[in-house]
């Protein structure tokens, strides 16, 4: 492994609204920021073969995922005019209605903040080695497939 500092992305279980509020509040000291863009992924209660999804259980290839998140982070800072960025992804069980992905980008102007947020979310969905297992009421499951 190289010596670059890798920020912690994975957190155990759902991401709470109060954690998101804390993250936002911390940026009030960064007074050159004019625009924040936030993406939140929430677990849906899809019905598959007549059974309702109660939760998603996430697993990851942690070591590779942390590298990938770091690379996405570096590229985002190179490609966009960006002041701050934070990524949090759940591992383990997240119930439907709860939040499992939190991407937070901040820039001087709105265009940068919004474009880079969308860029990061798309790369995470496509490239992060994370797998979701959709668990039904009876604890049976299927492996989730992301829509492109």
């Amino acid at each position, binding site marked *: 492994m190289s010596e670059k500092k890798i920020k912690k992305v994975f957190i155990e279980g759902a991401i709470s609204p109060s954690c998101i509020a804390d993250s936002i509040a911390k940026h009030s000291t960064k007074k050159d920021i004019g625009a924040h863009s936030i993406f939140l992924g929430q677990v849906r209660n899809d019905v598959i073969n007549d059974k309702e999804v109660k939760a998603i259980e996430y697993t990851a290839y942690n070591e590779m995922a942390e590298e990938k998140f770091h690379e996405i982070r570096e590229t985002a800072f190179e490609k966009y005019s960006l002041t701050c960025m934070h990524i949090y992804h759940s591992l383990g069980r997240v119930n439907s209605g709860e939040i*499992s992905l939190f991407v937070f980008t901040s820039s001087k102007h709105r265009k940068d903040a919004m474009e880079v947020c969308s860029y990061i979310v798309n790369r995470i969905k496509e490239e992060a080695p*994370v797998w979701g297992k959709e668990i039904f009421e009876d604890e049976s499951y299927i492996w989730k497939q992301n829509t492109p």
Partner: protein
Amino acid sequence: MKMKILAFGIIADITGKSEWTIENIQHTDELKKHLENLFPRLKNMKYAIAVNLLITNGNFELTDGTTVALMPPFSGG
């Protein structure tokens, strides 16, 4: 020559284990054939192979001490 195999998602369901060691396999194509013989369901699966954290394209030579990961399509977020 030993390598570590990691299996994720539905692949770990099929193989029944998420981490094990194999010996004396020269490259990723040989590994795929070996695994598909042991676990025929893998033949119809779409999965990527990462060697030491990097996703491989085409056949890739394996050396002692490498870590090989078997990864079905990602579904995070």
